[in-house]
């Protein structure tokens, strides 16, 4: 089921959460709404679900206007950040809830309910927990039960609000991979909200970057990573070193470093990711800039360097530890940076 959001505006009192947002998510897609807190991503998800109603604009499922439809008539599977399992019901009853509240005519017989619930519990690999209560489960288990419960109503779309936000790092990684696999199996159009760019890039087919109630960029993880539309997207998708440069005579120039460029002439802001630049020992005249090493953080085989020029701001760079050691670099050593990949925006 495709989702189409058309020109939606939503205010909470004086605060405008969404300003004229439009978005199309094709059938079978797994999309991530990515943005900092307060960017409107959760509000957009709740509007798609029907848990909020827009002040202006429309929501369509498969071309049908569902804007006025109540959440209970929209048939959306919604997974809450804090699971929202019914605490007084067993896992089995939680998953069965959506079937039990169906109108009498459509409600399956007890045996059919049992079959479907057990099948869903097997799908999330937790059928052995059917008789437990939510308080007896771990966070990761609760989230999977919440997902099974949402899937029980055979939803037209699956919406997940920060589904991994409350979990610890390892569980989060496992669940991420698992969600991706699950989606490949059942192919229901899914949208999840996250503020973790790694999560969005790793799991989603399509990343929707949001900021201050606007959608800033929509694209595949590779697209938004390699071709960020704005400096905000560039900075949000991972750490980046910012340089002031200039484009003149078809050349991009940062410090003494230069390279052919097709950008319009004038002052530019150039961003370089820590792993997309060469760190050269010593002061190199042709480099973009030179710094002194302030601090070295060894992370496995990789060293993260915190650099700064005299009195300047801290800049991050990365290099393999064996190269660092071979070059004899230590805190206080001078280094120079030469960009490999540059993201250029007009200043």
């Amino acid at each position: 089921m495709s989702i189409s959001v058309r020109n939606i505006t939503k205010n909470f009192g004086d605060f405008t959460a969404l300003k004229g947002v439009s978005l199309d998510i094709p059938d079978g897609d797994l999309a991530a709404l990515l943005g900092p807190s307060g960017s409107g991503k959760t509000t957009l998800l709740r509007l798609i679900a029907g848990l909020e109603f827009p002040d202006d604009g429309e929501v369509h499922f498969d071309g049908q206007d569902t804007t006025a439809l109540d959440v209970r008539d929209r048939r959306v599977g919604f997974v809450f950040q804090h699971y929202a399992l019914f605490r007084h019901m067993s896992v089995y009853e939680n998953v069965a809830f959506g079937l039990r509240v169906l109108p009498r005519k459509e409600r399956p017989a007890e045996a059919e309910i049992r079959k479907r619930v057990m099948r869903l519990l097997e799908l999330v690999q937790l059928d052995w927990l059917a008789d437990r209560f939510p308080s007896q489960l771990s966070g990761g288990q609760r989230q999977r039960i919440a997902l099974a419960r949402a899937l029980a109503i055979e939803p037209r779309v699956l919406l997940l609000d920060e589904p991994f936000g409350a979990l610890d790092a390892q569980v989060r990684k496992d669940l991420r991979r698992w969600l991706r696999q699950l989606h490949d199996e059942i192919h229901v159009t899914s949208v999840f909200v996250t503020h973790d760019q790694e999560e969005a890039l790793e799991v989603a087919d399509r990343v929707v970057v949001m900021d201050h109630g606007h959608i800033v960029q929509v694209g595949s993880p590779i697209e938004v990573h390699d071709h960020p539309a704005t400096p905000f997207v560039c900075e949000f998708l991972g750490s980046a070193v910012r340089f002031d440069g200039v484009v003149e005579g078809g050349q991009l120039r940062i410090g003494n470093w230069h390279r052919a460029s097709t950008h319009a002439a004038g002052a530019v802001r150039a961003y370089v990711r820590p792993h997309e630049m060469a760190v050269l020992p010593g002061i190199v005249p042709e480099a973009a800039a030179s710094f002194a090493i302030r601090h070295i953080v060894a992370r496995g085989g990789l060293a993260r360097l915190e650099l700064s020029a005299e009195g300047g701001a801290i800049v991050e760079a990365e290099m393999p530890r064996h190269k660092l050691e071979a070059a004899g670099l230590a805190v206080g050593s001078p280094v120079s940076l030469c960009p490999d990949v540059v993201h250029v925006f007009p200043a």
Partner: protein
Amino acid sequence: MAGPVSNALNRSPAAPVSPNRRRVGEGPLLRAFLILLALAGTFFLLVVPLGVIFTEAFRAGFAHYAGSILEAETLHAIYLTVLTALVVVPINLFFGIAAAWAITRFAFPGKKLLLTAIELPFSVSPVVAGVTYLFLYGAQGLLGPMLGALDVQVMFTVPAIFLVSLFVTCPYVARSLIPLMQAQGADEEEAALSLGASGFIMFLRVTLPNIKWALLYGVILTNARVMGEFGAVSVVSGNIRGQTNTLPLQIELLFNDQNVAGAFAAASSLAVLALVTLIARIAVERLAAREVKAPRKAASVGVSG
């Protein structure tokens, strides 16, 4: 004020402290003194008076006691007290749920004001409430001429007792629900709706089970307060023997008549009610605490088979 009501259900169990561990500034002498003081206070302020009620009630023997209780006016007072509770408690139950729902689930202008207004009866003396109602509905009151024209008398009737009792007890249910419903949030309810439940089914199968203990707690407090209310009822009831006298008023009346045994007999029935309330409260708190720790299996029996 609202403290004891709202916190009773959320009380965390005290951390176990080894007997040898002393807190800073706590000598054995001081500790002994404070414990003795608390025990003595409890004994003289609470236990002795309670004992007096029952010894005085039975001083002239059981037959006399039964006779005093079964006396027509006292019986009527008991009947009226129970009737008042039967009318007032359900109304305030619904009002309390509605108010707690509005305050914890909706954002609207004047929400803070509503919250404060609900708590007003906690801070206003019941006598003031009675006088206010008299001023509103009495023959010489603000609405008096209008009510007179319609030939409706409110003051000095049974409905007046209902009215002031409603006023005095309206915060209890709401105040025991609000902190809990705030803490629980609306997630589970939204989940129920997204799974296709109607508002009514959601309330019945998700909201109500989550708030039942706090609700019961509020109802018990409301009931105890309704049955024991003296000040407000005394102003508006008119103290008509056998007609508008509730149990607390009847006790005072008997006492003023020098009928000490009768007064204490009537008082003993209120005291028994108080003890039952206390036990019910403790039972509810225990059950609620147990459910938080380990949800009972019973809930799932018979559905998964």
